C-alpha cells in the first residue's frame, strides 16, 4: 500500500474496498486488499491469473461477501448482500461470458423481470418503447426486436452496458472486454468508453493486454498473490515497473536449475510437429527430444491450446504432420495418440479430465483399462495396484482408490488427471495448464512430477499461460494469432516473457 497515490480528483470515491480478505478453504484468495475508484475515471485492475482479480470483482459486485473488510459506494456502506436490487443500482459487471438470454429479444433482455405490464399482463408495445429509449439514450445501434443470441460480441457488450446503466448504476466493471474482439472492434469499444466517461460513467477495466491499460485508463491497481501491490496513475507507472509489480521479484531455484541443465541435444526426437495448421493455428513447427521440456505460451486465444490438442488427438489439424517416435499421428484420434505413447492432461479437468461420478481408481485407469486383465476384463487387484501406485506417486490426498473424484479438492483432482496421463507410461507428455486452479502446494507437487518425468527421459510439452509452469521448461515458444512468434531459452526473465506474451 506504500505507493498508493492520493485520490486524483476531489470528492468521495465512487467505489472503495478497504482491507477486504476472502478465503476459500485452504486458499487465501484475497488478503487485506483494497481499491478506490474515483468518479469519472477509467481504472485498470491488472494481475496475473490467481492474483485475486475475480474475487475482488465478486466482492465489488456483491456476489461474494468478504470475510473481513468493507465496501463503500460514494462513502456509504454497501447494501447487504441479499439486497440485489440495491447492488444493481450501484455497480454492474460485463463478464467475458454472456449474461443475456439468447432466445429472448434484445428488448426483453434489457427489461427482464421488470417488463412493463398493463392490468397484470406484459405490454409488449410498452416494452419495445422502453427498450428503444434505453438503447437510444446510450447510443446503442441495435434493434430491440433482434434475437439477443444473434448479436455479435461487440454489440452484446454494449447491450449489457446499457442494461447496467438502465438500473441506475454509473460504475461498470468490464472483465476482459477485449479478449474476444478484433482490433477495429477494440478501437470502437474505446471510443464508446470515452463517450460514456464524458457522460459520467466510471469504468473498472480488466485486461491482460497491458498496452490497452495505457490507452484507455487513467489509474491502475495491481494485485499479486491475493494482495494489493500498488495503485497509481498510469502516467507514473512505466511498463517495466507495471510488469514488475505484476510478477514480483521472485528468486526461483527452479529457473536457475533449468538454465543450468545441459540440454539433451543428442537425445532422440520423440515429438516432431511440422507445419501444422488447424482451426486457430497455422504453420506451427517444433520438435521435442527425449528428456526435454518445451513450453508453449501466449494469450488465451493465441492458438496454443489448439496445437496441444492436435498433438494429443483431442483436436484435429488440417495440414502438416505430427510424428511421435517417428510414427505418424492421425488428426483428431485419441486412441491412436495413446497407442503411439502420448499422455495428456487436457485443458479443463472438469470438462475433459475427469468423470466426477466415478472413483479415483476408475479415473486413473481409464486409459489403460484394456491392459488390466485378459479379454478386456479388469482384474480388481491389478486395478487397485495401478490406482494405489498413482496415488502414491502423485501424493493424492484421498481416502483410497474407491473415493469418488467429485469429493476431492481441486489440487488432488488435478493430480488424478496427471495420474491418468501417466498411466499408459507415455513417451510424450502433453500438459495443458497442468496447474490451473490448484493451491500452491499441489502446484509444487505437480511441477515436481514434471521434472521427475523429464529425468525419466520423457519428451514433455507444457502449454500454459502460467509462469510457474513455464519455469520447468528448457525453452518456451510464444504464440500469437495462431503462429509461433518467439522462442525463449531457459533463464528468461519474467518481465521479458510477459512482455513477449502480451505483445509489447
Amino acid at each position, binding site marked *: 500500500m506504500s505507493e498508493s497515490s492520493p485520490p486524483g480528483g476531489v470528492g468521495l470515491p465512487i467505489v472503495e474496498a478497504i482491507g477486504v480478505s476472502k478465503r476459500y478453504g485452504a486458499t487465501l484468495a484475497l488478503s487485506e486488499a483494497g481499491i478506490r475508484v474515483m468518479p469519472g475515471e477509467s481504472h485498470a485492475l491488472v494481475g496475473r491469473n490467481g492474483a485475486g482479480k475475480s474475487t475482488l470483482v465478486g466482492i465489488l459486485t456483491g456476489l461474494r461477501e468478504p470475510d473481513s473488510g468493507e465496501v463503500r459506494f460514494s462513502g456509504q456502506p454497501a447494501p447487504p448482500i441479499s439486497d440485489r436490487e440495491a447492488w444493481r443500482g450501484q455497480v454492474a459487471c460485463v463478464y467475458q461470458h454472456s449474461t443475456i438470454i439468447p432466445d429472448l429479444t434484445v428488448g426483453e433482455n434489457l427489461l427482464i423481470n421488470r417488463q412493463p405490464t398493463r392490468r397484470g399482463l406484459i405490454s409488449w408495445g410498452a416494452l419495445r418503447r422502453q427498450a428503444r429509449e434505453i438503447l437510444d439514450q446510450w447510443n446503442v445501434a441495435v434493434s430491440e426486436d433482434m434475437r439477443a443470441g444473434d448479436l455479435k460480441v461487440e454489440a452484446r457488450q454494449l447491450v449489457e452496458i446499457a442494461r447496467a446503466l438502465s438500473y441506475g448504476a454509473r460504475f461498470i466493471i468490464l472483465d476482459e472486454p477485449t479478449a474476444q474482439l478484433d482490433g477495429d472492434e477494440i478501437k470502437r469499444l474505446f471510443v464508446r468508453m470515452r463517450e460514456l466517461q464524458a457522460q459520467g460513467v466510471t469504468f473498472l477495466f480488466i485486461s491482460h493486454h497491458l498496452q490497452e491499460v495505457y490507452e484507455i485508463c487513467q489509474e491502475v491497481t495491481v494485485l499479486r*498473490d491475493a494482495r494489493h501491490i500498488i495503485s497509481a496513475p498510469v502516467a507514473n507507472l512505466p511498463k517495466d515497473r507495471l510488469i514488475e509489480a505484476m510478477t514480483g521479484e*521472485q528468486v*526461483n531455484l527452479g529457473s536457475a536449475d533449468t538454465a543450468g541443465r545441459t540440454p539433451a541435444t543428442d537425445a532422440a526426437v520423440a515429438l516432431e510437429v511440422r507445419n501444422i495448421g488447424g482451426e486457430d493455428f497455422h504453420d506451427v513447427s517444433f520438435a521435442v527430444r527425449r528428456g526435454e521440456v518445451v513450453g508453449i505460451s501466449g494469450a488465451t486465444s493465441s492458438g496454443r491450446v489448439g496445437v496441444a490438442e492436435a498433438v*494429443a*488427438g*483431442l483436436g484435429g489439424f488440417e495440414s502438416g504432420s505430427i510424428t511421435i517416435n517417428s510414427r505418424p499421428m492421425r488428426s483428431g484420434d*485419441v*486412441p491412436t*495418440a*495413446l497407442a503411439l505413447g502420448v499422455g*495428456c492432461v*487436457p485443458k479443463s479437468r472438469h*470438462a*475433459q*479430465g*475427469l*468423470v*466426477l*461420478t*466415478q472413483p479415483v481408481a*476408475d479415473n486413473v485407469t*481409464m*486409459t489403460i*483399462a*484394456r491392459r*488390466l*486383465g485378459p479379454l*478386456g*476384463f*479388469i*482384474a*480388481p487387484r491389478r486395478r487397485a495396484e495401478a490406482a*494405489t501406485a498413482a*496415488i*502414491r506417486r502423485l*501424493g493424492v*490426498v*484421498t*481416502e*483410497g*482408490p*474407491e*473415493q469418488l473424484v467429485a469429493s476431492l479438492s481441486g489440487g488432488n483432482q488435478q493430480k488424478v488427471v496427471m495420474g*491418468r496421463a501417466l498411466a499408459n507410461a507415455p513417451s510424450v507428455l502433453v500438459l495443458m495448464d497442468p496447474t490451473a486452479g490448484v493451491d*500452491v*502446494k499441489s502446484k*509444487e*507437487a505437480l511441477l515436481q512430477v514434471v521434472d521427475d518425468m523429464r529425468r525419466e527421459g520423457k519428451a514433455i510439452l507444457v502449454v500454459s499461460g502460467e509462469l*510457474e509452469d513455464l519455469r520447468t521448461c528448457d525453452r518456451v515458444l510464444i504464440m500469437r494469432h495462431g503462429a509461433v512468434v518467439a522462442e525463449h531459452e531457459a533463464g528468461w526473465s519474467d518481465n521479458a516473457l510477459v512482455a513477449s506474451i502480451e505483445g509489447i
Partner: protein
Amino acid sequence: MSVANPIPQTSIVEPRVAPTAAKIVVARLRDLALLPALALLVVIGTLVSPVFLTSGNINTILTSSAALALVVLAESLVIITGKFDLSLESVYGFAPAIGAMVVVPAANFGFGFELPTFVGILVVLLVGGLIGFINGFMVVRLRLSAFIVTLAMLIIVRGMLVGATSGRTLFDLPDAFYALMVITFLGMPLAVWLAAFAFFVAGIVLRYHRLGRALYAIGGNPEAARAAGIRVERITWGVYVLAGVLAAIGGLEITGYVGAISANQGNGLIFTVFAAAVIGGISLDGGKGTMFGALTGVLLLGVVGNLLTLAQVPSFWIQAIYGAIILGSLMVARFASGQSQE
C-alpha cells in the same frame, strides 16, 4: 510463492487404508437400499396370504418378472450411458410379432412366407437389433435428442405392429416361441434362468470389464471419456443395439408367458421399466447405478404385483395402488441410501 513444508508432504503420500474399507461398505450399502422395502413387502405378504411364501408363489413372481427384467436391464444400460430409449416397449411387442409372422401361415395372420421356425427366432433378434441400430444412428450420428427420437420410434414401431397385424392377436405359434416359458430347469422356466444369467453377465461386465466401465465414463462425462481414448460414439451406438436385442428377447419371453402376441403387447410398459430402474438406483443423469440395484427394483415391482393379486384388491383399483407403492418404494430407497435421485 512459499516453499512447501516437506514434513506434511511425506505424511500425505501414505495412502490411508483404514477408512477405505468402511467407504466401500457404505458404497455397497447404497446398492442394498431397496432391501428394507422388499423385506417390508415380504412381511406384509406373509400376513396377507399364507400362500405368499410358498415355493409355488415365489416361482410365479419370478416367472412373471422375467420379461420385465430383461427390458429393465436393457434400459439401465442405456441410462447409465447417459441416454434414453423409450422405444423398447414397442420393440418388446413388434420384434416377436414380426418373427412369428414370417413363420406362421397366412391363415393365422402371418405374412405367408412360412419360413423355418429358427429363422423366425433369428428375425426376432434381428428386428430388435435393427431398431436399436436406427435409434443409435439418429442419436449418435445425427445428434438428435434421445428422448424425442425414441419417443417417435415408440409411436412408429407401435403403429407398425398394429398395422402389420391389423390389430389382431397372433396365436397358434410354433413351440419355439413358447420354449422359454415351457422348458423348465430345476423347477424354473428357462426365461427366469435367462434373465438371471443376463443380469449376472451384465453385472460382471459393468464392474469388471473395460466396456462396462466405459459406459459409466460416458454417462458421467462423455468429453473426459473421449479424452481417455474411449470410442464414445461407437459404444453408445452399440448399447442401443444391445438394448433393442434384449427388449426383443424380453418380448419373446412374454409371448411364451401369455401364449400369444397381441397388437398392444408392451403398451405402457416403459413407465414400469423406468420405475424399476430408478427405484433400483439407476440415476437418470447417467453414470450411476448397478445391475444389482436394477434387479431389486424389478423384484420389488414383481412382489407388489403379486401381493395385489393375492390380497384380492378390486381390479379397478390395482393401478392406483401399484402407482402409490412405486412412489412409496422410491421414498424408502431415497432415505435408506441418503442419496438424492435425480
